[in-house]
């Protein structure tokens, strides 16, 4: 395997790994706040689920970039 390929793989890993960490951090915050909200107002459960999904945009964009790197676009 040549160095260029290794570097590309590493770049792709970074592209998805870092946003994944960011998403995880954001979701942990939203998740615990969401649990608190649910304890007070159970009727908001669906809203909370959507809220938790919102930071996933980051990791999805990271995934898109990683795919672009790997598939050589």
């Amino acid at each position: 395997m040549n160095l260029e390929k290794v570097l590309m793989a590493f770049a792709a890993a970074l592209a998805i790994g870092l946003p994944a960490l960011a998403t995880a951090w954001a979701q942990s915050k939203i998740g615990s706040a969401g649990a608190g909200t649910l304890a007070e107002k159970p009727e908001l459960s669906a809203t909370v689920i959507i809220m938790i999904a919102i930071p996933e945009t980051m990791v999805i964009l990271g995934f898109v970039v990683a795919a672009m790197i790997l598939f050589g676009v």
Partner: protein
Amino acid sequence: MILLCDIEDRGYPTDYLLARIHGRRAFLLKDWEKVLFSLDISGYLMSTRYSKFISGYPADGILRRYQEELQWMYYQMNKNLRHIFGPCFMYAELGTLLTCLRYHLKKGKKTEIEYILAFSLLSERVKNILSLESDLPFILEMLDKRAAFLSDSPAGLSDIFITGGLPEVEQTITRTLLEHIMHEPGHPCITRFFISLIDSINIITLYKHLRWEMSAKPAFITGGKVKETVLSAILHSRDVSEITGLIQKHTGFYVGRPAAANVESALLKGISGQVKKMERESPDIGLILNYLWRFFLEARDLSILYYGNKIDKDIIREELVH
């Protein structure tokens, strides 16, 4: 923190508690005019979160709801938060402790003391001393041994009780606790809160001394922003109106003619302003502190309404803070 009960850390994240407090804040009473002028306060409270508590004797119900909410907060906090807010809970439970001592002095019923202690956050040992024993000097002696902060005070509580009576003991306990809190390192918000609190207590002490022309030297609490020299200077001038300036400088509220009611409410409003400011500056600790404070004020105001339901509403309105 030997005064408070020690419970295991349940590890709830801070954000969880903050979200819950955000939710619960909606249940704080807002329409005070409506409460004030409703013919039947209990009837009005039935439509709020107090409904569960006021079926029996409403004033007890208000205290119970306050205690339950405090306990709830304490149990929802993680170890770190509990450490930060320890002084606040200690100060809140000081009220419980002093109430119990007063009951003992009156030779009140054991069940009443147990009722007060049922939802208290005091440690089991302190609770046991308060509920099982009945001899006040003995209780004070035991408290001396149990509560670490009291070791700062030079004389034993039971000696103070014999020479100065219960009021003197109450003052000593309050003073040593507050000075102890100021002595320990704490979160900046909490420290600022206690500075305001100590200032307020000192100003009220000063006002009472001037108003009732007491001759004994008042015991001011050290650690506040208003220096003892300033307080002593006003005390020596024997001029009640000087207090107006002090309050305005300290809280921003102008008290035209100082009277017990408006001095206290102006000082409390001053603390409310401080706490609100802290919430803007520190959205987590400030938020919790603000909620605790507002909850305390709500309980205080409601008790005033209940005990003063025969007094003219305009006078009562002046006493309310919320």
